């Protein structure tokens, strides 16, 4: 309650009294009295200055990482006297470490006055956060005493991960034939949507011959139709506790989240159905879908993921194999030392699932107890296994420019 200034004043009061008693000098008594009165007055002023305010905070529901969040605050003084020089401290756990508290220093608020003002906070890290509670810090006019009061004003906000632009990504598998598809794939097939014409090849049905073109070109020309199919991509994340290497925003999980979100958005923009799979203590799956609402579902999922799971990536892949359709694509974001996960990917290959592996170089992110980096022989074995899977591989290290990596296939 006493600030450092207050403690100094208290000491001064005591010392002055001691000198005054020892010397009986009138002026020292006067000094003592003034210092003492200031001390007492400061205390009562602090008590009186504690405002009875009503605070309302209006903020957006969602924001992206690294964006500024605009907050509107409304303050109403409920008492019939003014209050001055008090502080409102708003708490946002998603801000940069050390800057979680935003201090608003109120110069003055009159009796029954209502004030509106705006301020901003930096959304440093993705997550589902609660802003608040608010602390009101009252002090006297000279800063000798300080008192805190908490106001339970809480707002919820989802901070989506910051995404980067993916310019190119390996095309997903042609898709499973299904009449459930709401759209046709832009590849030749057997639907009723006309796709084009081409020269006759052995085995083509006679019924597909387009006679007017054949007559015009003087050779056999057949009609082609679009195939009814949907392209499906399953993205699998490693959420095992302890597999998140690094500190702050430079961790493997943060990279994985950023990549998963950006790739998912790119694929959905290209009319691909995307599902997201990650296991913590239970399955956390965003089933196949696309469109804007599905994109936000995925972003919300990614905003909240933490590496708190008990399942390894290998186990997650085992579970994911049940929900990954044939002739679809599997994107796995994994550490570059996870041999078990690599073994689990074999079954997908057997099922005819196209594999895309995004391997994060764990050694560049730092060291975590319990996780061992592969030695040279191990790394070679990992590479060989990866090559055996005939997967499309991205290798990513800490500090890499992700946008550049996903510039070309």
């Amino acid at each position: 309650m006493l600030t450092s200034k207050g403690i100094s004043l208290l000491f001064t009061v005591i010392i002055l009294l001691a000198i005054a008693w020892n010397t009986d000098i009138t002026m020292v008594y006067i000094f003592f009295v003034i210092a003492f009165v200031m001390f007492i007055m400061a205390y009562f002023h602090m008590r009186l200055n504690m405002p009875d305010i009503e605070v309302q905070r209006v903020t957006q529901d969602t924001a992206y990482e690294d964006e500024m969040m605009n907050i509107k605050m409304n303050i109403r003084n409920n008492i019939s006297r003014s209050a001055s020089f008090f502080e409102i401290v708003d708490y946002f756990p998603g801000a940069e470490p050390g800057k979680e508290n935003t201090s608003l220093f109120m110069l003055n608020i009159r009796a029954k006055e209502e004030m509106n003002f705006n301020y901003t906070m930096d959304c440093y890290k993705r997550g589902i956060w609660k802003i608040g509670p608010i602390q009101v810090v009252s002090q006297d006019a000279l800063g000798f005493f300080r008192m805190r009061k908490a106001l339970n004003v809480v707002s919820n906000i989802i901070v989506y991960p910051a995404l980067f632009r993916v310019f190119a990504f390996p095309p997903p598998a042609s898709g499973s034939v299904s009449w459930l598809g709401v759209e046709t794939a832009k590849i030749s097939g057997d639907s009723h949507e006309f796709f084009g014409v081409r020269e006759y090849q052995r085995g083509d049905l006679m019924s597909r011959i387009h006679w007017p073109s054949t007559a015009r070109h003087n050779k056999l020309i057949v009609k082609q139709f679009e195939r009814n199919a949907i392209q499906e991509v399953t993205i699998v994340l490693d959420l095992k506790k302890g597999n998140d290497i690094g500190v702050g925003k430079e961790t493997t999980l943060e990279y994985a989240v950023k990549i998963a979100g950006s790739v998912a958005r790119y694929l959905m923009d290209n009319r691909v159905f995307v599902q997201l799979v990650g296991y913590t203590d239970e399955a956390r799956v965003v089933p196949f879908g696309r469109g804007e609402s599905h994109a936000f579902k995925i972003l919300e999922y990614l905003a909240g993921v933490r590496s708190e799971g008990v399942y390894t990536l290998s186990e997650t892949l085992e579970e994911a194999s049940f929900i990954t359709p044939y002739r679809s694509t599997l994107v796995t974001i994994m550490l570059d030392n996870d041999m078990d996960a690599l073994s689990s990917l074999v079954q997908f290959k057997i099922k005819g699932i196209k594999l895309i592996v995004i391997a994060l170089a764990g050694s560049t992110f730092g060291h975590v107890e319990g996780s061992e980096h592969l030695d040279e022989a191990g790394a070679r074995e990992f590479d060989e296994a990866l090559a055996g899977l005939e997967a499309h591989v991205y290798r990513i290290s800490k500090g890499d420019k992700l946008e550049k990596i996903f510039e070309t296939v």
Partner: protein
Amino acid sequence: MDKDKLYFHFANLGLVIMGILSIQKTVGPVMAALLVLGSVGGFLFSWYIRNSRPPHIDTFIGMLSLASAVAVLSRLYEAEISFENLLRIFSTALAWLCLFQTFGLKEQKSYSLLQFISAALLISSVSLALEEETVYILYLTAFLFTLIFAMRLDLVCEKQGRGSIIIGDREEVMGLWHQIKVGAIMFSIVLSLSAIVYPAVPRFNNLSLDWIPSTLLGLSEKNPILKLLPSADKSIKEDKVKKEQKVDDASKKRETAKAEIKTKGPEEKKEEDAKENKKETTERFKASDFNKNIDAYKIESLTIKADRDKLPLDQQASITAEIKLTDGSVIQATKLVDWKVTGTAKVSLDKDGKLSPKEEGTVQISASYMGAFSNDVKIKITQPVTPKKKKSFLFHLLMLFLWLLILALLVFSIIIFIRSQKLAAMFRDNPKEFIKEVYAALCRALKIYGMPKFDYTAYREFYDFIREFISARPGPMQALTEGFLEARFSSHEISVAHSRNALESFHGVKDVILEREEKNKFWKGFLFRLTVLDVLLVPK
């Protein structure tokens, strides 16, 4: 730097100056003037480098501070630990701190130390100069008011420094007059309440706490700091002695009282022994006359009086004795009584009761007449008082000149500061006017080198005129002239970039001029710098 910080900065300078002024009796007017100059200089220096930290400044400041600490400590080794010396040390420390305020000017963290030292100086000097209470009450009130003002600003500046967002009408709440008004209200409340509380403050006398050993109150009587006060004769111990003396006088049990006084604690005994290093002697002076009409049985009391209690060696004191009879009549008995003089000084007493001292010390005089004993009178024999040497007219003239110099320096600093602030604002908001002002300032300064620009001289003509003078590097002057012509005559918008170019060119011209080798270089350079100081203070 915004207005709040500016007010705060100068309020603290005010506190420091008040602290130094309060000790000018102790350190002497010359030293006080130097300290004030040093403090003002320190503040100006720190102001000058507030936004930029010249290379190696920290090392330089650190070394100077270390040197000052060594100098102060080495002097302490031989110096007598007296209050005056402590004040000197405090004031020197204050001037050093002000001189190197750069430590905290940006963050405003070290002001509290300055405030503390200023207050300590004020309080201790008041303790030393009780006879001039009125002056010190004025110092105290001014100090208190400025302190309240500074502390209010400190709160806002501290919050700003920590990145708080300031909400509210700053113009209204933090305006200078509003600040002064609020400060004055708080100041009057503090003083009024103090006046009410003051009579109720427990004192040793009115609470009769003198029987409590001061050690119980946490005050060691041996505490040298407390004994340093020259007014130590007002201490608890002295108070006790006086009271005991009063009791003795009332009961006339002289001998008993003396015994009681002597049965004080061993510490006091030692102290008294030290005081009475000289051997105590007793002299008796017989009566010069006898009055046979006085009946010894009718004597009610015998009282002696001295016309002074301190007697310089070159003067005389007059001692009189009166006998009060039971019928109420009083008889002058100066010539009738036998005198007894006990003490550490030699004195002579004539038949008319004139006491002539022969050496320094203390004497206790008593009288007796036919079995009646008088009260004791204590007289302290002191060194002859020599008239204070009157200071010469030249000294007062010098002092006046010094103070005028300080005043002029202060006014000059304030004017330069305000001008530089205006220029800095122009730099951003009105580049056209800024460039014109910079050019005009340079033209003014060039007069020092005997190159005035007359009204009828065209701008490019003037450049040709001074070209030889700045032949080492005429480029910046040419750029400044062209920049000025553009700002003066062109109708297109002049941006901050133009201001920046003009300022850079100005600094370039300044460097060329100051690098020249010529007679009276130092004085001309000094005057040149002074003339363009306002422009030099504009941050690049």
